[in-house]
Structure formats: C-alpha cells, structure tokens
C-alpha cells in the first residue's frame, strides 16, 4: 500500500509541476471561451447583406414581401436570370404566373448558395404572401389582416413546461438541460481521451526508457499500474477543481462589479420586467440566475464527478494495457488503441441522441452499459427525469466494469511491460488473459 502511495505521489507531482499542466489548465478554458466567442462573432459577421430581384408576374408579392436587415427585395422590371449580377443583385427570384401544383417551380437563381437560413426566409415570404392573398380574397379587411400579422405572440405569455412526478413538480428547462447534458458529455468524452492517453504515454515512457523492469523489481506490476492510474486521476481532479474555482470565482467577481441596484432589480425580476439601466449586467445576472436556479446541481455535480472518475477508471487500465504492449513504433499504438477508442466514439454518438431524447431505449441502455454510461448518463441526468433505479444500476455496473477491466488489463500489462522488440497480436493478448500467474 505504501508503495502504491509512493507511485501515486510521483505520478501526481511530476505532472502537476510540469509547465504544460499549468499552461493547459489555464489555457484550455480560455481557448474554450475564445472558441465560443469566435463562433458567435463569426456567425454574426458572416451574414452577408443580400439584394434579391423578384420577378412578380402576378403582382401580388410586391405588397406582401418585407425586406429585413439581411435580405432586401426589389421588383425591377428589367432584370432577368441572365443579367441580375450585372445589375447588382445577389439572386433572382422568378415566380411563375400560375402556381397550383408541385410542378410549378419557383426558382431562386444565384451564383453561389445563399444558405439554408436565407432560403427558408424567402420561402416564408412566399408562403405569407400566398396566405395573405387568400385572406384578402375571402373578404378579410386589409386593416384587420395587418393587425393580426403584427401580433408578437412571444410577448404575450411565458411558456413554462413543468414536470410532475407524483407530488413533486419542477420547472423544466429543456434548453438548459440540453446544454448541461451536452457540455458534460463532451467534457467526459474529452477527458477520457486526454487522461487515457496520458496513462498510455506514461506506460510507454516507462517501457521505452527501460525503467519498467527496474521498478518492477521493487513493486508489483499491478501496484505500478494502479499507482499511475490513480496518480493521473488525481491530476484530472485537480484540473477540474481549478476550473470550478475559476468559474465560480470569475462569476462572483463579475457580480461584485455590478451595482447593488441592478442586483435588486434582478431579484425583483419576476414582478417587474422593465429592466432599465445597465442592461448588459442585467442580462448577465438573468443568465446566471437561470443557470444556477434552472438545474438540479446537487444531483448533477456529484454524478458528474462519479462518471468522470468511473469512466476514467474503466478506460485508463485499458489504455495502460495498450501502452504496455507497444514497442518503439507509435504507429502500433494507433492500431492497438482502436478497440478502445471505438466504444468511446460510439458513446459520443449515442450521447448526442440522448440529450434530445433522454428516455429513448438507446439512451437508457447506453446509460447503463458501462462502456458508454459515463458519457451517455451525463447527457440524461440534467433532464431531471431519470429514475433513481437506473442511476443506481448504471453506477453499480460501472464500478463492477472498471474492477473487471482493471483486472484484465493488469494481466496484459504484467507481461507486456517486460517484453521488448516483439510485436504483440490481439490473439496473444487474449492468451495472456487466461494464463495463470
């Protein structure tokens, strides 16, 4: 036990003291935030203003089409599909005189794709025009029609889905639980790879530096393997903790800079909606309140830690086994890793289904089978309606799973770590599994 402790300490300290640890711990969230901002910025920036020439043979669209910030519609008479670019239009919309069936094609002609969003907008405009025309034809007053069209439905009510299970009711926030589920799924997926690969590289380093046999003459191979796995787990937890402190610290700091009045206003949010003054700060506080209040954090955080650790322990020993059989050739590691990376990638795919449909059979099974449960279960839990027994079974099978993989991997590791200059096949590894000591 004492020896495992020494190994854990070494693995932990050499990694935490390393400059790359400090850099990656600080840089990764920055890169993450930067990425979010950059993609948001780009999606705003990349919207090009478009001027579409419409050939309206019926004359009914002219009154109905409404230009917006992005797309401007014009109805020139001298533009056709051959000269619209020369006249300064990005596209040419040709609506035939008769449009009674699917065969009558409304053509939107452009040099390059306008994008799905723009195409949808144009379609909406056409559909609206057709509907408006129908209303007018049925003697609906133009004024009445306009006033109906001007209703902003969103401002008239607040939509609040509520989940009722027995006596308990909870406000459901699908968007938030989707985001949390997706976020934690991705985080576990990434950490499985990052820390799993760290274990593998550590084992390969020991084998290639030829220190494995030196150490193994002092400690059992299993102790060395377990020490490494636990040491790196501690590194992972440290990194998570630092991130958590950073997030909580930064948002508290940000709140502290927002004036007291605004905070008071935010607290009275439900009674009065007219948020004056510092609107950016208001938005931040609203976001923070929904984020903190909108999810069951007392369940999500412990579960996240459990699945983070459990998933890591399940896969880390397998990565260690692969590292132990690799010789000098890194290419070999790639092909040997395939059976481990496949289920992780598959879990990711199941996870993207599970965030949207937390109760679909594939999501339920995926969240119970330990190969995929660490990633998939975290996508389901934020939805708030995973039965307790499923979480329990999933956790139990994950614990049994990682004990099993660790035991099996140790058998491969023990032989592989001392084997030099020999390419090991999966068949041979299979034999090692069933060999007595």
């Amino acid at each position: 036990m004492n020896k495992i402790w020494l190994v854990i300490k070494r693995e932990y300290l050499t990694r935490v003291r390393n400059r790359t640890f400090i850099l990656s711990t600080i840089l990764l969230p920055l890169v993450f935030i930067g990425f979010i901002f950059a993609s948001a910025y780009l999606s705003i920036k990349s919207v090009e203003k478009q001027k579409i020439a419409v050939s309206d043979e019926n004359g009914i669209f002219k009154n109905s089409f409404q230009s917006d910030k992005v797309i401007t519609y014009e109805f020139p008479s001298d533009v056709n599909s051959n000269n619209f670019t020369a006249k300064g239009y990005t596209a040419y919309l040709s609506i035939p005189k008769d449009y009674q069936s699917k065969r009558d094609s409304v053509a939107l002609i452009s040099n390059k794709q306008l994008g799905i969003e723009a195409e949808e907008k144009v379609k909406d405009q056409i559909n609206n025009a057709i509907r408006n025309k129908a209303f007018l034809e049925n003697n609906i007053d133009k004024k009445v029609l306009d006033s109906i069209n001007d209703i902003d439905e969103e401002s008239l009510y607040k939509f609040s889905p509520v989940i009722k299970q027995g006596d308990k009711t909870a406000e459901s926030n699908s968007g938030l639980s989707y985001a949390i589920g997706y976020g934690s799924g991705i985080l576990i997926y990434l950490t499985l790879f990052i820390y799993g690969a760290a274990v593998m590289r550590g084992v390969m380093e020991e084998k290639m530096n030829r220190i494995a046999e030196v150490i193994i003459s002092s400690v059992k191979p299993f102790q060395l393997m377990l020490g490494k796995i636990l040491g790196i787990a501690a590194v992972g937890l440290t990194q998570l903790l630092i991130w958590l402190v950073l997030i909580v610290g930064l948002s508290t700091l940000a709140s502290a800079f927002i004036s007291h009045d605004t905070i008071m206003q935010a607290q009275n949010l439900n009674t009065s909606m007219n948020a004056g003054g510092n609107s950016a700060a208001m938005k931040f506080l609203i976001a923070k309140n929904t984020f903190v209040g909108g999810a069951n954090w007392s369940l999500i955080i412990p579960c996240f830690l459990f699945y983070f650790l459990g998933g890591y322990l399940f896969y880390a020993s397998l990565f260690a086994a692969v590292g132990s059989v690799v010789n000098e050739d890194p290419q070999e590691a790639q092909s040997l890793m395939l059976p481990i990376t496949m289920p992780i990638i598959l879990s990711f795919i199941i996870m993207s289904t599970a965030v949207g449909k937390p109760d679909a059979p594939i999501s339920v099974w995926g969240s119970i089978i330990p190969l995929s449960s660490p990633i998939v279960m975290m996508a389901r839990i934020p939805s708030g309606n995973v039965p307790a027994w499923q979480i329990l079974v999933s956790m139990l099978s994950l614990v049994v799973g990682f004990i099993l993989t660790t035991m099996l991997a140790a058998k491969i590791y023990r032989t592989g770590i001392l084997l030099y200059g020999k390419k090991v096949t999966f068949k041979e590894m299979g034999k090692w599994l069933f060999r007595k000591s």
Partner: protein
Amino acid sequence: MNILELQNLKKYYATQKAVDDISFAIPESTIFGLLGPNGAGKTTLLRMITGIFYPDSGNIIFEGKKFDPANDISRIGYMPEERGLYKKMKIGEQALYLAMLKGLSRHDAMRKIKEWFVKFEMESWWNKKVDDLSKGMSQKLQFVTTVLHEPRLLILDEPFSGLDPVNSNLIKDEIYKLAKMGTTIIFSTHRMEQVEEICDKIILVNKGKKILDGSVKQVKQDCKENIFKVGFNILPEPFENNVFEIVKTNNNYLTVKIHEGYNPAAVLKEFLDHQASIISFNEILPSLNDIFIKKVEDTKLARQFENV
C-alpha cells in the same frame, strides 16, 4: 551458509523451455558468475530470483527460507540488462524515489544518497535531469540506485556495458568492496575476461539447462586439455614420438598436447633425451572464453522453437 539456493527451477513459455530444471547454490559473500549465450535463459532465471516471475515448479530458498518476494525483494538489488531511468525527472528525486520504493525511509535514503553521490563525485548532479547525462554517467547513477538500500544479494546483468575503462574500474572496485563487506553478487554476462577477473564461482547455462558449475579454478582444471608451453634457448629439431604432439611452433617455444596415458614428466624426458635446452615448462589452462565457446558449441547454439 548459502544465501540463495535454487532447486529444480522450471519456467516454460508457450514455445520454449526458458529454464529447464536448473539447480545451484550460492554461498554468502561470493561473487557468482551466471554465464550463457544470448537466449540461454539467464534473464528468465534472474527474473525468478527477483520475484518478477513465478517459477512453474521448483523452489527458491533465500537466506535459508522459502523466497517470499513481497518481503525479500527489499534485500535484493537488481540492475537488469534492459535498464533506464525517468528521463525528465531530477536525479536527486529519482534516486530518492527508487530508494524509498525499496523500503527506505526518506531520512535514511537521503543520507545514503548523499554518501554515494560524494563517493562517485556526483554532488553537482542533484538538480539535473537524466536527459543531461552521458550514457556512462547514467550507468553510474543506475549502479548507485541499485545498491543504495544495501542489498544482501546484488544482481548485476551486464553491469559494464556502456562504461569506459575508468568508470568500469570505479564500479568494479565498488563491487569488490561490497563483496568484502558481505554482499553476495550475481554477475550475469557473456564477457568472459570480466568473469575470469571478478568471479569466485560460475555456472554456465545454455538452452535453459545448466552445463557447468564450480569455482573458476575448478572449472578450468576440469576442462583442461593437457596443453603445455615449453620454452627453449634454441628450438630443437622436430622428432617422432608417442608422448605428445606439437600444436604450435613459435620463435623460442613450442606448445604441446600430451597424449592420453602420459604425464608431463614423460614429455620432459623425451626433450631431454634429444638434448633440448629447456628453460621453461608451464601448463596452459584454457581461458573461460575457450571453455564457453567449446561447451556452447557442443550443444546447438541457436534455440529452436519447440512444443512444450
């Protein structure tokens, strides 16, 4: 007393009998040579002695009791042939780590590391990394980390590979000193001149079996081929005889092999009868190198894959 006794040790792999019924005993504070060509089973044997492998059958008796790896490895020091150190770790910390893995307390480990670092003039290395060391320097460090915990049994597999003569001698002197202080040393190599110089006892293994066992002197006696070197003032004219044949002729001496049934005196008598001016007469014992080559060639050199 024997510090280590192996009794009918066997270890079979899927396609090879790596160690096939080997028994021998090593008396306390001897320097013991374990010889054999590549792939003879030396490494497997050593891995069983160091508790890395379990034998398929047979017993290992360490200090008079059945070998218990969990407790006994702290009294064994092993420098494997495939050896190395953590490249990115500071040298002082690395030595400390390895010593503590052997069960030393932090305090004892520090004290001993400092002693050895002074002895080998390595004090300035403490905060350096292994990456910064030359191959010879890291071999010295490796030796120090192997003996730090003052093992009762020290196992060195090819300890001088990669060392220049000066550093070789430095380590050789330390090996002698350790042996004098009561450490038993198993020395595995195929460099025969080193064995001849250092070892008290040897065994020779090939293809998983022991083919020679004894003190260096005894082995040489056992394998001698009755060859003598006779020195002359002036070489005598060749003559016919039944007693010996001339193996080699030099400027002023002859190397002769005595035929079976005759003794050295008969050779001298023959030469004297022919009025030869003898000035010296020595027996030539075979070198270990010759014995090694001869014994190994007797058995087929390359291991064949076989079904066990």
